[in-house]
């Protein structure tokens, strides 16, 4: 369990990081190292150069602007979890982060690292999806913005190019009630399934204006439960509606054998029910 030989380069700026990546096609970005380092030790990943972005000052800010919460890619998960700004603008992030690994892991792991790693059972990609986040990537041709919907394409697969660095995640700020519910076999494990819930209400305070439901751990990538979202829109979120909506929720677009499909479906319905109960007005 020793990594194969690799070169280490500490990037001083985003431009620097992009240059370093361009210089070596087998280079890989290192941030908090909480996923990459175990993969190196197992020799599952064997990059020739690690480009360390964790010390780039420009990637370490948290800022609220133009209706979004912009979180720098190298912001440590624990810092985001404890940030009053995050709690105020996007409480869902803090709700989700409490489920990420253990304290020690969150104190090293970064927001951008988790998003870019795209583990199908990870919490932050689901949050990004639920909050219609935008991912800002920097590459040789400059920066581009990718919608979360277009970002997560498969297990550990994103539309980020090999020569790009994730710079920032712009989470949408909503006046919503939010909840993050998951089930893991042990505290701190990757979840068997989980769901990020954000619901906004009409002026009457009980009718659902907008429901955002992003499930993770149910397949190859996090998914929005669009059918269920539409089902809830314009309805009063009663216990009865929650029960019916959950019972009608199916996992679509994933290839599962039985009994896995039944298990994941049962679990998702439970978590959806519990998540929606938490956001009832």
């Amino acid at each position, binding site marked *: *369990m*020793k*990594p*194969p*030989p690799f070169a280490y380069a500490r990037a001083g700026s985003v431009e620097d990081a992009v240059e370093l990546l361009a210089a070596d096609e087998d280079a890989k970005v290192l941030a908090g190292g909480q996923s990459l380092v*175990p993969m190196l030790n*197992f*020799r599952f990943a064997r990059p020739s150069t690690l480009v360390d972005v964790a010390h780039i000052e420009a990637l370490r800010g948290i800022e609220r602007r133009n209706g979004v919460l912009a979180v720098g890619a190298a912001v440590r998960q624990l810092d985001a979890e404890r940030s009053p700004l995050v709690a105020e603008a996007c409480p869902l992030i803090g709700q989700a982060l409490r489920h990420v690994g253990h304290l020690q892991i969150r104190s090293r792991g970064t927001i951008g690292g988790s998003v870019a790693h795209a583990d199908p059972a990870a919490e932050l990609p689901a949050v990004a999806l639920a909050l219609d986040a935008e991912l800002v990537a920097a590459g040789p041709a400059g920066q581009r913005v990718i919608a979360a919907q277009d970002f997560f394409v498969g297990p550990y697969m994103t539309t980020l190019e090999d020569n790009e660095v994730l710079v920032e995640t712009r989470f949408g700020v909503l006046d919503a009630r939010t909840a993050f519910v998951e*089930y893991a*076999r*042990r*505290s*701190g*494990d*990757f979840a*068997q399934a989980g769901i990020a819930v954000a619901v906004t209400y009409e002026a009457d305070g009980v009718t659902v204006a907008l429901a955002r439901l992003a499930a993770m751990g149910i397949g190859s990538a996090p998914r929005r439960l669009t059918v269920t979202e539409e089902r809830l829109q314009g309805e009063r979120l009663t216990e009865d509606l929650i029960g019916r909506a959950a019972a009608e929720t199916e996992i679509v677009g994933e290839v599962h054998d039985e*009994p896995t499909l*039944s*298990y994941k479906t*049962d*679990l998702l319905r*439970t*978590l959806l*029910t*519990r998540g929606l109960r938490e956001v009832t007005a």
Partner: protein
Amino acid sequence: MEFHEHQQSLFSRPGVGLGDRAPRMEDDRLLTGRGRYVADIRRAGAVEVAFLRSQLAHAEIKSIDCEAARALPGVIGVFTAEDLDDVAAVPDFPDPDLARPVGTFPLCRGRVRYVGAPLAAVVAVDRYVAEDAVELLYADLEPLPVLASIDDALAPDAPRLYEDWPDNRLVDVRLEEDKDEAFDRLRTVSGSYYMQRHGAVPMEPRGTVASYEEDRLTVWTSTQFPHIARTMLHYVLGIAEGDIRVVAPDVGGGFGIKAQVYPEDYVVAWLARRLERPVRWIDDRYEHMVSAAQARDVRIDLEAAVHDNGEIEALRACVYHDVGSGEVFPNGFNPDFVAVASLTGQYRIPRQQSGVIAVVTNKTPAGAYRGFGLPESCFAMERLVDRIAQELGIDRVELRRRLTIREDELPYVTATGSELDSGSHLAALESVAERGAAVLAELRAQETSADIRYGLGYATYVEGVAPTYFGTTGHWTSQDACDIRFDPDGGVTVAVGISAYGQSVSTMVATVTAHELGVPLEDVRVVMGDTDRAPYGLGAWGSRSTIVASGAIHRAAVELRAKGARIAAHLLEAAPEDIEFADGRLHVAGTPNASVSWSDIAHAALIRIHDLPDGVEPGLETKATYAPPGIQHVPREDGRMNACPTYTNASHSVVVRVDLGTGDVHVARYIVAHDCGRVLNANIVDGQIQGGVAQGIGGTLYEEFAYDDAAQPLATSFMDYLIPTASEIGPMEIVHFESPAPGLPWGAKGAGEAGIIGPAPAIATAVEDALSEFGIDEIVATPITPRSILGALRSARELGAVS
């Protein structure tokens, strides 16, 4: 009753010592980072080893190309079985009628039989280079058909793992064809119960460092039995035992897996001699998960002939065990005989017929793990008892009450010959049943969620302790030894043949020695884990340490006290029989001011021998051995056998919290009533029970060495092999009953495996209790997972919808 009178009087003495909740003497050092483990052994010029391990479960070795690896800068050498042509095969069990010979060599010859089997050893300047070189090795392996389960191995046309065997049965003790006549006469209840493959994953994995200097081999290794390791190294390497020194430094957990000598240990020692420089191998967690002995993977088929009142007249049992490739001595089948001998537990079951079939497959070799056959047998038997209760409509506790032997029936000889000498079988059961019911009511009353159900479960068992064991060197044996010596200043050094791996035996040995000699605890130093300094002993396993070490210490202390009394009498001008031992001094009875210290005695014996009385030899040191009484080392004519000097008993109850929405089973409260005879230090016994229960919960709900159909291991890190953390264990309550073991030191029994035996059946029946409204009553296998619970609930719903 060799021990009683003297020890009774010592026991009642107040202060820090026997019977107290004294702090563990080891803790300060180990918990403040001052422990010294194998990985901390640094030898000048040491080189590191990494192994090429098979990625295939079963294959013929065509060739291994080492050229590129040898050429890598920093590589000192690459060695395969061809290089190790001067080693002997690891000895097999000496009776081929019981267990077929396996004939294993330290590096695979001809075939590989499991993923992780060592094919070659790379020696390099450091572990990084060694691992780089391993990647450059190319092993040409021709795949062979794979056996991945008991059924695979027993299939009529199954490929064979060992070509010279007629089948895949390492052990084949068949059940008699003729059933006990009771099965014709009475109702029969049967079941087949499976416990999944799991095992010990101590914080410190394995490791061995060896050096060969001045014609002497020194081996530092993380082992539970240094002397046995030395004997095995002698067998395989052909070096005289006196020319080998084995040292077990601090050992960071063993739980049974370090009561095996492994291929890597022989290879590292061989390399040190070959290269004439220190060689170091510290395994990593991946290696541990594929190469350290695994356990369980046992199915037990049971059938009981039952009276209408639930009493069981006869039992038929067959144990099927997947021992993996069987290539780690002693092959892993020993727990099966413990399982057979333990089935009846504390129940009155007059007759038992038994079979044992241990099969080889293409999985990591099986070996010892805490519990050693008992968790499997307790799971099977207690599940069968629940089944009987259900079929007869008898309450689960009431049936256990009826079956449990009463105090007036002791000593009771079980159907397989175990002599239950003492215990609190019924009282312990009543205790946990009452407490469990109270906790259940309390938790149910507090619960507000409609998705939560609570259930209560029980398990009872007896645990044979300090057994005879043929696994250690292939011969039956059970003794241990100590060597106690005084220094002139009155200090005492006690060297023992048992071994420490976190279970606090230093505290036990020091406390027992201090009490036996009547010296202050701080004057006692304990030596163990070094074959040059400690007398030949069998190490620590089988809940034996307290019994065997105390017995030897007692014998040595009796001699030393007698000698001390004679010298004191001479110095004080009194009669030896008037000398009393108190407060670290030797007094003349009735004369308060007339006393000498142990230092005075030691001075006379070692420095001023002209002070000695006539006929007393100089020196103040005694060696003693002790083999616990009452043990039969081989089965009697009738096939029955009492393998242990005494039997600890316990009852467990558990309240589980089941989440109907997620299938999660959480242990809300775990209750243990435990009787290991005289409790010498309740802190230590509590720690043993708590750790055991935690591992038992792990084995019931979380831990599994899963394999796919090609016998590829699926759990090779702690991402996939789930060990319970503090969050998963829940609060525990422990009550001690104390039924002294007649004729054993202090009346103490063993407590090492206690906690791990009960959780599987207790949790299984508790889950069924929680889900009784859904008619779920068929838990016959572990692990019990959220997926299996949700699946059962879904089936129950679908059935309900149909009917």
